């Protein structure tokens, strides 16, 4: 027996064999490139036909791209910190 699924949006739809919520669950795999080619094609077909998933998918992918862009730039005190570590290494233990 299948579980009833709440409808969070009036226009949730099934496209390319996927419901919107299923696309939602696959977005990280999509942006990380870990979907199978077939699953990726289904997501893309769904997104092309579904304005909600296109909009949210774009927003989600942008958030992921933005956090990746934060990166790990050297700290302002990188020289001081590195010198401190090297001094510890050089000191007799």
């Amino acid at each position, binding site marked *: 027996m299948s579980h009833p699924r709440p409808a969070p949006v009036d226009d949730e739809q099934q496209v390319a064999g996927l419901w919107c919520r299923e696309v939602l669950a696959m977005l990280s795999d999509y942006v990380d490139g870990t979907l199978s080619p077939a699953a990726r094609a289904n997501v893309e077909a769904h997104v092309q036909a579904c304005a909600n998933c296109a909009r949210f998918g774009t927003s989600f992918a942008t958030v992921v791209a933005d956090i990746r862009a934060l990166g*790990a730039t050297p700290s302002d005190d990188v020289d001081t*910190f590195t010198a401190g570590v090297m001094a510890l290494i050089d000191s007799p233990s």
Partner: protein
Amino acid sequence: MSVDEDHALLAAVQAGEPRAFATYVRKHEAGVRRFLRTLLGDHQADVDDVAQEVFLQVFRAARQGETSMPTSPRAWLYTVARHAAARRFRGQRDALVPAHRRDVDDATFRHLSETPPLLALGIAAGWGTETPEDVLTTRERQQALRSALQRLPEASQQVLLVRDVLGLSGDEAAEVLGLHLAAQKSRLHRARLQLAAALREVLHAETPGAADRAGLSTALSPQPSPEST
């Protein structure tokens, strides 16, 4: 390439060139200190001490040739950091959870528990909401993103940090966080949705009506913008 560089630097240390370690420290100090900040909660004053311990431990291991084994020096480094943070406050229950968050961790999202969690997170993140696309500058986005990150539970911050900010692979992140790969993937996806939801809150707080400006580029499906203002 980065992994090869780490191997080369640590091999140089093993070969008796300790100065190579300065390059290694410079390369990783920001990531390690940032990771420790998410691990050490209220004990931010201890971050640099623990970070020094971490690098000292790595140096000693490299000098003794122990680093020829790990396939991922990055995963090994951050695992050393996680263990060092845990060791620092061993036996002190909740010591690593900031006081102001002990009762509210995840509370931000608790009110959404009546619906399936992932779906609820998606809805909180704006899924199913018709909103116009708009554009924030990169700087505005990054400032909002940093504020949003601070609002997330530590576990979510950690997985976002190691996967998206530091760029570790799924396997590496799972090793560092002590999770199975599937659990790591699930945590990452939820954390990204939490981040998107928190970003909406930040943007709402700063600029009423701007909450959905997080959707900015055409990363998934290029479409002509319906509105420009």
